[in-house]
């Protein structure tokens, strides 16, 4: 019986058959890219190039603003076309650097694209390589990796957990990464392990990916201090806190972070990016994403340059069908519904899901019948239905608990009354934070 986080969770249909068997393809170089400077959690980066300036692939185009921030690099070589505010999926008003590609893809000096192995003789240089490469969490949260790998002294860490769960329906990018590059992922894991100085790294994979488990297992072999653990397929197994509970049986207290229970969690995609950053000195300029769903003609797993317009991606996948109802950036449970494809691919874009009209519109809503399904589904032990009712009534000052919500969506998924529970909880979170801000400034 594989481990799991015990309380809560749901079992949405996996829908991974669309792209599970498709190897990662490279999207042809886009004609131009639009790179937002506020892709990561933390302060937005500051541009260091000007319009009409020529840039090479991998060149720094924006500097971090503070410790919790990341440098941004050009993802194609060419000329900076403009620096201005554009609508992206992060916000309607993001500062973006547009680069027109010259089609050559000339890399900056110092990048060794063919390097195959990390030199483990100087682990003290790894952190700086990771920071300089602009790495952020590839699982979707986009937290600067070098910050996560530098926990403060007050929070000693003993385990690195590598998240190969990919519990969201439709997404298979991490699965393919593990199948195609298990060795490089392992090197990335070992590099992160060295940076953190921990004795144990555990790679967790959901048991609906038996081939990936086998591949990683084989790559790990007898490497000391690295284990592969299969976990029960249950959403949201890949949520940080739940994953730590399943693997280490430790619960992160409300308001605290994983490092407070001695663990650091990183996505397998991030581990791969770490390998590239340390072995090849390659900055983060591309990522693997899953393009899937019933309303895209040719679902694929694609390697895409950051800043590529979604339109290019969609065209390469045969275009959307007429019955397209919803376009989701990310996974279908926690991703963002887009209003148009005029936005670029970000460092955190794990997928692009095309839902058909029939599944896009919600069913008519009715009153909460106190059935308790949401309570049973919530992995955090909250009472979502009650909180949603309070949010509807505007009683935000009583909803401090909403801050502990993971926004996983398990509550809304199962609700027979089709109530928009998660939307109400997100509203409550927002309003509560506003109230707190007001109180502080009062």
């Amino acid at each position, binding site marked *: 019986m594989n481990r799991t986080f015990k309380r809560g969770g749901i079992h949405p249909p996996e829908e991974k058959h669309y792209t599970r068997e498709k190897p990662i393809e490279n999207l042809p170089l886009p004609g131009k890219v639009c790179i937002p400077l506020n892709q990561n959690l933390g302060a937005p980066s500051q541009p260091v190039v000007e319009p009409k300036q020529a840039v090479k692939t991998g060149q720094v185009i924006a500097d971090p603003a503070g410790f919790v921030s990341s440098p941004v690099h050009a993802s194609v070589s060419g000329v900076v076309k403009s620096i*201005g505010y554009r609508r992206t999926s992060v*916000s*309607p*008003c993001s500062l973006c650097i547009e680069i027109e590609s010259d089609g050559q893809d000339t890399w900056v000096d110092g990048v060794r694209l063919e390097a195959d192995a990390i030199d483990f003789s100087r682990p003290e240089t790894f952190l700086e390589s990771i920071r300089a490469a602009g790495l952020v969490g590839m699982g979707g949260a986009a937290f600067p990796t070098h910050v996560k790998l530098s926990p403060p002294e007050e929070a000693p860490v003993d385990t690195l957990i590598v998240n190969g769960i990919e519990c969201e329906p439709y997404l298979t990018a991490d699965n393919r990464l593990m199948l195609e590059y298990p060795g490089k992922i392992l090197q990335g894991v070992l590099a992160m392990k060295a940076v953190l100085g921990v004795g144990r790294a555990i790679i967790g994979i959901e048991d609906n990916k038996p081939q990936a488990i086998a591949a990683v297992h084989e790559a790990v072999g007898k490497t000391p201090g690295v284990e592969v653990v299969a976990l029960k397929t249950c959403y949201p197994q890949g949520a940080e806190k739940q994953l730590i509970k399943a693997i280490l049986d430790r619960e992160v207290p409300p308001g605290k972070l994983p490092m407070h229970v001695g663990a650091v969690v990183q996505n397998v995609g991030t581990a791969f990016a770490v390998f590239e950053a340390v072995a090849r000195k390659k900055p983060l300029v591309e990522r693997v994403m899953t393009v899937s769903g019933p309303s895209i003609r040719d679902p694929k797993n694609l390697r895409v340059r950051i800043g590529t317009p979604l339109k290019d991606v969609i065209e390469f996948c045969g275009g959307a069908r007429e019955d397209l109802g919803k376009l989701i950036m990310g996974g279908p449970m926690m991703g963002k519904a887009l*209003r*148009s494809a005029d936005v670029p691919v970000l460092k955190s874009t794990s997928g692009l899901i095309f839902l058909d009209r029939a599944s896009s519109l919600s069913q008519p809503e009715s009153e909460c019948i106190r059935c308790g399904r949401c309570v049973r589904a919530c992995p955090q032990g909250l009472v979502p239905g009650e909180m949603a009712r309070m949010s509807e009534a505007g009683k935000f000052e009583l909803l401090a608990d909403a801050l502990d919500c993971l926004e996983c969506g398990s509550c809304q998924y199962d609700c027979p009354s089709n109530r928009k529970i998660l939307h*109400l909880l*997100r*509203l409550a979170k*927002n309003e509560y934070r506003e109230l707190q801000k007001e109180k502080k400034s009062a």
Partner: protein
Amino acid sequence: MAVILYSALVLGGLGALLSVVLLVAARRFAVYEDPLINAVEDALPGANCGGCGFAGCRAFAESIVRTRDADAFCPVGGRETAERIAGMLGMEVSGKEPPVAVVMCVGSLDGASFVGRYDGVMDCRAAAIIDGGERVCPYGCLGLGTCRAACQYDAISIIEGVARVDPEKCTGCGSCVKACPRGIIRMVPRGSRVYVACSSHDVGKLIRGYCRFGCIGCRLCVKTCEHNAVQFSDNLARVDPDKCTRCGQCIAVCKPKTIQGADLSPEALEASKKPPRKRKPAKPATREANP
């Protein structure tokens, strides 16, 4: 007979005893309160609506007496009540009219762009978290009626996708200002409602793509105004109500009809309909705005 006598004596005696106890307690444990507070509270309408910003008429009365603020305004009682209370305090009302709320957006369905189909909670704050409903303009009115629900006086309605305040019903309490997640409702002086009804900080080129009423940044209003009442910053024009004389010139030159005006004097109204006076062409702007 005896029964009646005894009953009367006992009950009467009990009543008398309890009265004495209450009297003593009332004297002994009395809390001194300025009698003025009661007088002021009586003068207030007693609706306990919260429009003044306090938790009920009693709280408001206490605040007025404590701060001796004759200008504290009760939206329900109006000017009459304010004058009576000021009289009790031995002061005069300064004559300031309560402000009125205006919505700084006129992007109605017939002129602004909308895409998609919103399928979320019908509340503007909820729509704002997912990047704002169907309106393309990232600053404009979301039209789901959170301000309308917040208004206790029924002064707001959603017309053609934009919220509008009825100045007759508006009491200036400010609840709608707090409710709007985009912060586009503002208070302006009641007698002087000339305002730029747009909140978008995008450049004119972008705005023209999604709203034909938006402020395009031509700055004609700034140049036309002889009283220095129109400022332009961050791609948006703003009227300063303290300097505005309601002459209506800016309204006349505003091509997209973004500047709204009411309370114009009859002469100004006439003048605003005429074409503006000829002015020297301005030098082109030297600092390139964001492309």
